[in-house]
């Protein structure tokens, strides 16, 4: 009888957490409206209904899946919402604050249940507060009914009257519903069964003794039997806690497993393409079956079709991993509210482009850097209301989050209308830290760049928001690790804008295949500045050290891939091979290889977890013939080139850049 519900757990948690997000977003809106109107506010019934529905489904789901404490808490929340909805309880800022805390707690509850952790500590107190708030707005009459059983389950004696079926009831349905609440042991009582010749198929002769091994709320059971109360003998007895161990099983399930919810349209498109592929494949096999040279044109056409479908399939499959950036953006209104309240600032957050889609893996890893930037904007960018008024700006500071597609990339902008970067202070700090030579003159843009230097933070006071010692350098390196970049622009007194560029997906890169000896390596095109053949006289070895190549008056360290990787190269002399100029972290280096084989798109395959990380290699891919080719890590190669060359400063570079490179060593 027991149905294993565990396989539905991940969906339940996902949906419930989405419900929590909905509640939070609506509450934030309500709060903002209340603040604007200065307290009393006409109730927006639809808003409230959405919150109520979310709470209700979470309660329902939690009950169904046996998370009694979550259901219990959600019930208290739902009851208060119901009071407000029916107008018996006024909705004011205080209640919204309480609801917000309750929503936080509900989220913590769900996460704890999902990860098998202990429920949040503040739950009991908060539930009490919810129940008190419920009665506070009206004459204190009815307290909450006792909803939970204190034991570990229920003994149920259920004996329908003979004419049970006549009222349109079905005992099996009731048993099924009960089994959904928790593990159910069913014993049928057949003692009333008459002899065969007296049997009336329209009468109910059976009774049941049921044991529900789950401490569900009494109200949940009452709900199940609500329709049949007059038509049966029913006894409910809680089982004492000691007699049956509670079911610890489901809570530890699915930890760490991630899942994606995909729009049906995307899956349909996938099915369509696969259908096309199958047709093409059939066509091709028939063509090959009895092939004559005259049919070559048709074969070519068929292969071209196959190519097109494969590309479509690739796009569609990658599309499944794409999620709208709104998943990340949706957390920022709450963050802005909390952070600005804590700092005594007034901030309005505007969001656009939340439908822009990005790879799920990027979405997950861009959250922290974005959070950092938004916090920074509120903490450092936006001034206090008085300062803003003095500067002739509206008291409410504005922060914008924009996302859009641009040239095969996704661009995310975080901008504020605050005070802008204080270049004097940044420069002073950089000099104090020794990041910039005392006499060096820097362009404004170069000064702005300094905020991304490791160890750099201009926060006047270390508070628990931004000045945690984790600076913008971490933001930049995290974004770089995703194959993207971040830049800043700022106008003093007018605001600061961070522009983040990200690739659409992490799964595929445009690469250049390089040959060294008998091996093929892939270098992502994004890192290649140019390729050139060099005359040996352009390369020199000053003081017998590492080789340096002169490219249009610029001296760059030259890395020979065959020597670096200990490979037998075919090109012994410089004019036999080719030099690829790679650029990473603002520095350039030459990479000497035998030959360029051409551009191709490659699917990234991680070397980990089966292999250890290797210096100079970022990942691998599988070539058309099934062999593995390694993908070069330009950042690491440039670093190696510079540490091998140990160039104190690359000659003929700007003073500022020189300062950067020395600081990085």
């Amino acid at each position: 009888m027991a149905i294993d519900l565990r396989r539905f757990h991940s969906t339940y948690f996902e949906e419930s957490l989405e419900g929590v997000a909905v509640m939070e977003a609506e509450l934030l809106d309500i709060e903002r409206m209340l603040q604007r109107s200065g307290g009393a506010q006409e109730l927006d019934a639809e808003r409230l209904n959405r919150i109520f529905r979310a709470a209700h489904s979470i309660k329902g789901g939690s009950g169904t899946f046996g998370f009694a404490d979550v259901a219990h808490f959600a019930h208290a929340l739902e009851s208060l919402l119901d009071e407000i909805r029916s107008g018996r309880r006024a909705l004011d800022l205080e209640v919204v604050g309480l609801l917000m805390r309750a929503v936080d707690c509900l989220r913590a509850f769900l996460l704890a249940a999902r990860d098998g952790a202990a429920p949040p500590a503040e739950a009991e107190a908060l539930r009490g507060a919810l129940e008190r708030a419920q009665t506070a707005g009206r004459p204190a009459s009815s307290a909450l009914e006792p909803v939970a059983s204190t034991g570990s389950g229920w003994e149920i004696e259920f004996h329908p009257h003979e004419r049970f079926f006549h009222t349109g009831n079905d005992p099996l349905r009731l048993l099924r519903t009960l089994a959904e609440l928790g593990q159910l042991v069913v014993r049928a009582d057949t003692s009333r069964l008459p002899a065969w010749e007296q049997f009336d198929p329209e009468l109910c002769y059976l009774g049941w003794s049921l044991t529900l091994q789950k401490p569900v709320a009494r109200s949940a059971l009452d709900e199940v039997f609500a329709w049949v109360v007059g038509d049966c003998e029913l006894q409910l007895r809680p089982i004492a806690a000691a007699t049956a161990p509670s079911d610890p099983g489901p809570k530890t399930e699915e930890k760490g497993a991630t899942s994606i919810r995909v729009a049906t349209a995307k899956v349909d498109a996938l099915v369509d393409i696969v259908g096309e592929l199958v047709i093409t494949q059939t066509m091709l096999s028939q063509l090959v079956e009895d092939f004559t040279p005259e049919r070559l044109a048709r074969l070519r056409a068929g292969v071209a079709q196959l190519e097109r479908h494969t590309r479509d399939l690739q796009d569609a499959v990658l599309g499944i991993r794409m999620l709208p950036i709104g998943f990340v953006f949706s957390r920022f209104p709450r963050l802005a509210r909390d952070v600005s309240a804590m700092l005594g600032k007034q901030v309005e957050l505007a969001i656009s482009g939340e439908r822009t889609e990005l790879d799920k893996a990027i979405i997950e890893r861009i959250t922290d850097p974005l959070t950092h930037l938004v916090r920074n904007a509120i903490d450092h960018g936006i001034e206090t209301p008085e300062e803003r008024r003095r500067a002739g700006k509206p008291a409410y500071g504005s922060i914008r989050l924009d996302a859009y597609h641009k040239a095969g990339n996704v661009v995310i902008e975080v901008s504020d209308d605050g005070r802008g970067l204080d270049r004097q202070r940044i420069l002073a700090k950089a000099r104090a830290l020794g990041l910039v030579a005392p006499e060096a003159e820097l362009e404004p843009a170069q000064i702005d760049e300094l905020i991304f230097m490791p160890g750099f933070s201009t926060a006047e006071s270390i508070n628990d928001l931004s000045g945690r010692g984790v600076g913008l350098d971490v933001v930049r390196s995290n974004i770089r690790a995703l194959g993207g970049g971040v830049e800043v622009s700022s106008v003093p007194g007018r605001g600061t804008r961070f522009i983040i560029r990200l690739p659409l997906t992490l799964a595929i890169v445009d690469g250049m295949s390089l040959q060294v000896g008998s091996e093929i390596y892939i270098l992502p095109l994004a890192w290649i500045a140019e390729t050139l053949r060099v005359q040996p006289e352009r390369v020199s070895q000053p003081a017998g050290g590492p080789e340096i190549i002169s490219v249009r008056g610029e001296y760059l360290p030259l890395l020979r891939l065959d020597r670096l990787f200990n490979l037998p190269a075919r090109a012994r002399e410089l004019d036999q091979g080719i030099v690829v100029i790679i650029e990473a972290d603002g520095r350039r280096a030459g990479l000497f290889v035998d030959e360029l084989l051409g551009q191709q798109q490659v699917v990234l395959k991680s070397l980990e977890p089966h292999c250890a990380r290797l210096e100079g290699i970022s990942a691998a891919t599988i070539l058309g013939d099934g062999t593995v080719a390694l993908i070069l890590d330009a950042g690491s190669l440039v670093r190696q080139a510079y540490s091998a060359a140990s160039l104190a400063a690359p000659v003929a570079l700007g003073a500022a850049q020189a300062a950067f490179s020395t600081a990085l060593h």
Partner: protein
Amino acid sequence: MHDTVSVTGTPRSGDSEQYLTFRLDGLDYGIPIMQVQEIRGWTKVTPLPNSPRYIKGVLNLRGTIVPIIDLRLRFNLDEVPYDALTVIVVVNVGGRLAGLVVDAVSDVIALAPEDRRTPPEFEGQANRQFVQGLTQVDDKLLVLIDVDKLINQETLAEAAEAAA
């Protein structure tokens, strides 16, 4: 020695465990069959730069990149050219995959725990850590390998550092 010998392929008791045996430089080795994912012939691999000598490279195993370890080189035995009998035993330990290049696979045998002997302790025995136990099959020594230790990431990393 009064060790009884388990007959090939016939589990004697419920506790017995099956081992895949293979030959390496004239000696028989065994690994638990539960840790063997598949056996395949030698194919060319893609070398990993600046890796220890015994890591021959990586192989595409149906879309997964798997490192290939030459057991002869791992155990500091003489290197021999690969031939038709050379096989790669793909092992899976706790979800981590690796291919082991061995001279040839021999058999699958069942061993009871009481058949297994702890190897003697010698000073300065470099590869002692990979030997889980010893046993006798048909009066011949069979060395049971601790695959877990063998392909352990830390061990590989240490070796890589030593090689660097």
